[in-house]
């Protein structure tokens, strides 16, 4: 799922300076799972922001809401009525949800309350790690189910660089070398021969910088 981290309160307070009444909107999906923008975090942050503003001698009125999925217009539109009565929206959803609100409420300021960081998995309680960069052209079949695009600091497609030492990456001693993981995995699958095949220059043309924002159109589902 998408992982995000709350922005520092000082940063948020600076964005909220001109406003007296805001909607603090969480999201019931990914950011709830990673504890950065669910109902609980909305409540905590609301108290925190009110106190911070009080310390500056100014009140801040905050309405709290957490739609099930802010990135789906049908849920985002549930906020319509409240939005007409506030000066701005502080959204704790990922960058997608922020843009869903911006697209649907074109005269309202929508402020991001989190930094959207990556798509990843839960390693342990409170620990998440990046796993996918949505390159649009999955090569996990060739790499034993370990992605070098998301997990190698140089995105190498044909084996480890010279900085792989005792299973770790040279850039950080606690970071696993993706290619060591790939090697170990292919070895245990009896597929080491795959490492001898060259993966050719990748078609990166699946990224937004190359063809504009990516779009999926399913004719069978469109109305």
């Amino acid at each position, binding site marked *: 799922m998408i992982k995000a981290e709350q922005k520092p309160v000082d940063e948020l307070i600076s964005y909220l300076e001109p406003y007296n009444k805001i909607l603090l909107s969480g999201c019931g999906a990914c950011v709830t799972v990673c504890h950065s923008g669910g109902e609980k975090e909305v409540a905590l942050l609301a108290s925190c922001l009110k106190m911070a503003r009080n310390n500056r001698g100014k009140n801040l009125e905050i309405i709290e809401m957490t739609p099930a999925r802010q990135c789906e217009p049908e849920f985002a539109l549930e906020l319509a009525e409240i939005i007409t009565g506030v000066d701005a929206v502080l959204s704790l959803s990922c960058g997608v949800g922020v843009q869903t609100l911006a697209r649907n409420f074109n005269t309202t300021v929508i402020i991001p309350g989190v930094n959207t960081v990556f798509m990843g998995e839960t390693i342990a309680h409170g620990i998440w790690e990046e796993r996918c960069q949505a390159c649009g052209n999955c090569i996990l079949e060739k790499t034993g189910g370990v992605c070098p695009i998301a997990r190698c600091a140089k995105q190498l497609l*044909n084996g*480890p660089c010279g900085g792989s030492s005792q299973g770790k990456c040279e850039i950080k001693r606690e970071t696993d070398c993706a290619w060591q993981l790939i090697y170990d995995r292919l070895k245990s699958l009896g597929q080491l021969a795959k490492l*001898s095949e*060259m993966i050719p220059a990748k078609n*990166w043309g699946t990224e937004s910088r190359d063809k504009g924002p990516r779009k999926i159109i399913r004719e069978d589902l469109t109305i």
Partner: protein
Amino acid sequence: MKAGSNLEKVLSAGHFALTSELGPPKGNDIGVIRKKVDFLRGNVDAVNVTDNQTAIVRMSSIAACSFVIQMGMEPVMQMVCRDRNRIAMQSDIFGASALGIHNIVCLTGDHHMFGNQVNAKNVHDLDSVQLIDMVRNMRDNHTLLGGEDKIEGDINMFIGGAANPFADPFEFRALRAAKKAAAGMDFIQTQCIYDMNRFREWMRMMRDLGVHEKVHILAGITPMKSAGMARYMAKNVSGIIIPDALIDRMAKAQKGADEGIKICVEQIQELREIEGVHGIHLMAIEWEHMVGRIAEEAGLLPRPQVA
């Protein structure tokens, strides 16, 4: 001949080659290049000109190579995948070739977090294996990557790559070199060798795969200047293994620098005896003035003249 460079001629004629390294200036002072070239000219067959090594911004390798040629030496242009995409790389290879550069070493590139532009966005559009494949294709098929467009002119490049027998997973290291050989690599320069046993083991794996018959292997060495430098490298540089015995020997020596050179000369003699090693890549970092002495003491002078 694939490229007709001096390095290719020396290796093709069966001579034991010697290359060295030159880091361009951190600015436009070509006096830095001249000084290093003056130490190296005549003592080595060609000199690698690094491409923003350790991600420290320096004069571009291509420009520095061009000055090296003007100063009467043959350069080996290093090119890393970190800073350019395939458009810029192919364009630079056109330019390099036109400037008379006929050796290239295709590298991944040190990670930019080790350099002085840590907030940069690294590129890695291609990896080093794909870069080798691309240059070979430009040279042998006169075509651009993925295209049918014919290149105007001939891209005569003798293609090199790196190998690090001291990085992990060790069992994959020879396979990776074989992959580069299959992609079109003509010669290899290895990471600095201090652990001779591990290097011998890697060479055995290379011979088992037959890589030593497809590419010329130049064994990389770096003379140690002091016990402190040896300890620092052993501890901090990933992918370098320095046996304790060598560090002890440096520590006990009265003059560390002389001992470092003595060790280096012994290493050259030892490496020369290993089947499949066709030369030495001597990386005397900011110690270019010692290259002549080391080459002399190792019996590698004068350098062969091949027509």
